[in-house]
């Protein structure tokens, strides 16, 4: 797998860019972490004191140098708000966000792909019109609004959903033993069905509100790619060879659609990781998104920089995964160094 290493090496320049940019942008943001940290009762002298202990009184290039040296040793710094190393915070919270995003993506895929395929086989049929309506609606509503609406309807009015306060009702249940960090998977591994049920119940509303937003691009690209595939010469050949309709649709048309769909999936998943920031706030989800929001508000530089750097690395890995998948699906796709 030499190409994997080449690809990873190739991303180093962009990661360096990310490090430089996030450092200077986060420091240019309004807000003074020393004042925030000192609290409302502090006087000017104690704020200056804190500023000196945090090293914020030194010139920016010097601070940057220290930051880079720490980074090279795998030290992302210490968060002012939690008091823990940023790396620990992120590792603790990332599984929650990945769990949420993955379920959202799964939900979106399981609806959007069948819908897109079906719509393409019957253009202007009822499924096609339904597809168009769903795509428009889900693309038009902002994620956080859908989230709030869901909480209002399913928790407040109907009472079907549990309290939107995090990943598990920790008064009634204790989290499953830590393996992956994703409660649903850990509960499954531990065979703890009540916890699995409870964590799924917590997950379902945020995952659907996040997934609805991912539905539109996936359904649209599936329908378009499927239409193109079904109109192509090799489908005509397959029909002229008398292959059964199911085989033509799945083995011939759909497999040719996997390539464009997978590249969109990669993009959508990175959007989802970004939208987590909003939906985690709405549902009290203890993921990296909520962590980043509070870090920005507190001008917690180390935490913001750590979050952005981690996201950048996730995008790199995600794109690599999509490219590897592409080589598996389509023999014409080859890596050229």
């Amino acid at each position, binding site marked *: 797998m030499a190409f994997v290493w080449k690809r990873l090496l190739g991303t180093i320049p962009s990661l360096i860019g990310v490090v430089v940019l996030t450092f200077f942008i986060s420091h240019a943001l309004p807000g003074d972490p020393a004042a925030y940290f000192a609290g409302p009762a502090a006087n000017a002298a104690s704020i200056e004191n804190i500023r000196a202990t945090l090293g914020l009184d030194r010139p920016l290039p010097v601070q940057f140098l220290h930051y880079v040296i720490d980074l090279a040793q795998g030290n992302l710094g210490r968060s002012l708000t939690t008091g823990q190393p940023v790396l620990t915070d992120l590792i603790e919270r990332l599984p929650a966000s990945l769990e949420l995003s993955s379920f959202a993506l799964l939900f979106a895929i399981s609806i959007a792909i069948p819908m897109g395929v079906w719509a393409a086989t019957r253009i202007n049929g009822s499924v096609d019109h339904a597809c168009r309506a769903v795509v428009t609606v889900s693309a038009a509503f902002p994620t956080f609004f859908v989230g709030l609406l869901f909480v209002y309807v399913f928790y407040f009015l109907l009472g079907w959903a549990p309290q939107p306060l995090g990943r598990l009702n920790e008064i009634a249940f204790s989290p499953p033993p830590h393996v992956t960090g994703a409660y649903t998977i850990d509960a499954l591994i531990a065979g703890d069905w009540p916890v699995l049920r409870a964590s799924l119940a917590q997950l379902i509303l945020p995952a659907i509100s996040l997934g609805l937003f991912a539905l539109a691009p996936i359904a649209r690209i599936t329908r378009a790619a499927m239409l193109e595939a079904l109109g192509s010469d*090799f489908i005509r050949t397959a029909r002229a*060879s*008398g*292959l*059964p309709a199911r*085989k033509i649709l799945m083995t*011939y048309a759909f497999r040719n659609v996997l390539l464009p769909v997978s590249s969109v999936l990669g993009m959508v998943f990175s959007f989802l990781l970004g939208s987590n920031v909003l939906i985690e706030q709405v549902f009290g989800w203890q993921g990296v998104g909520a962590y980043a929001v509070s870090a920005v508000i507190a001008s917690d530089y180390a935490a913001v920089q750590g979050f952005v750097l981690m996201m950048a690395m996730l995008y790199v890995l995600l794109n690599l995964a999509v490219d590897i998948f592409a080589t598996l699906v389509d*023999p014409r796709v080859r890596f050229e160094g």
Partner: protein
Amino acid sequence: MAQLDIDNLSVEFRTRHGVVRALDSVSLSVSRGEIVGVVGESGSGKSVTAYTVMGLNDEAAQITKGNITMGGIDLLAARPEAMRELRGREMAMIFQSPRTALNPIRKVGKQIEDVLQEHAGLPSRDLRKAAIAALARVRIPDPERRAEAYPFELSGGMCQRVMIAMALACTPSVLIADEPTTGLDVTTQAVIMDLIRDMSRSTRMSTLLITHDLGLAGEYCDRIAVMHAGHIVEIASTEALLERPAHPYTRQLLAATPVPESRLDDLNSIPGHLPDLRGALPPCRFSGRCERRQPICDEAALPWTELSPAHVVRCRFPLS
């Protein structure tokens, strides 16, 4: 009786811009082992004829009259599922631009196996061997290795051989070749056409060769039908058609076909265009482009003139 018999076939397309009368009273038959060419310019209805036989026409196409039988089976009355079973087993089709006509992400051997699996009734462990045998029959060197190739790894001519191998895998009784050599270079054209001819001779397969190239049809066909604007205007044995064309359109086509001695200046183009098949059409659809047209051509119904039992022409004033 002919293996494939198209009788008095008319096809219309209902489109947003009106009804296109794509075929009008087309009659054509192909015997066992015979190669019949269908020649005409783009839009003359050659491919619609082929697709109608195969039952692959667009949903907008409507067969307004006529009959098609193959080996005694009424194809127009057959149910879609029955048609699907006939396609690939009893009748097969090959297309132009073979590289795009094959599934780009499936090994060519596998694509032939798909056809065999559907129609040949072979146990699945024999499929691969049968697919390789099919490739060997179309004289593909090293068929075991080629079966593992994807279409993009093969040349255009090699892809067309794969297409032929696929079409002939179940030894159909009817083969329709729709411009099979368009887009291939000249030497490859000859190889492919020789292959099609040898295959139809050796398996006594009825072959319908659709082409715009009268020279190619003249070289490989036993009989040739000339189509213009949804009409067959002349059918004759190749020899009679090339030497004694009776329809003005056929003669103009011949004058527009290059031969080795011809220079560019010698080649004629046929004046005018195909008529719009949507509006009211004169009885003779060629009359608008015909230099021998008489007032009566646009009035009375168009007769078939029989010059000999095997040479008929749809013209009131055939050339002699």
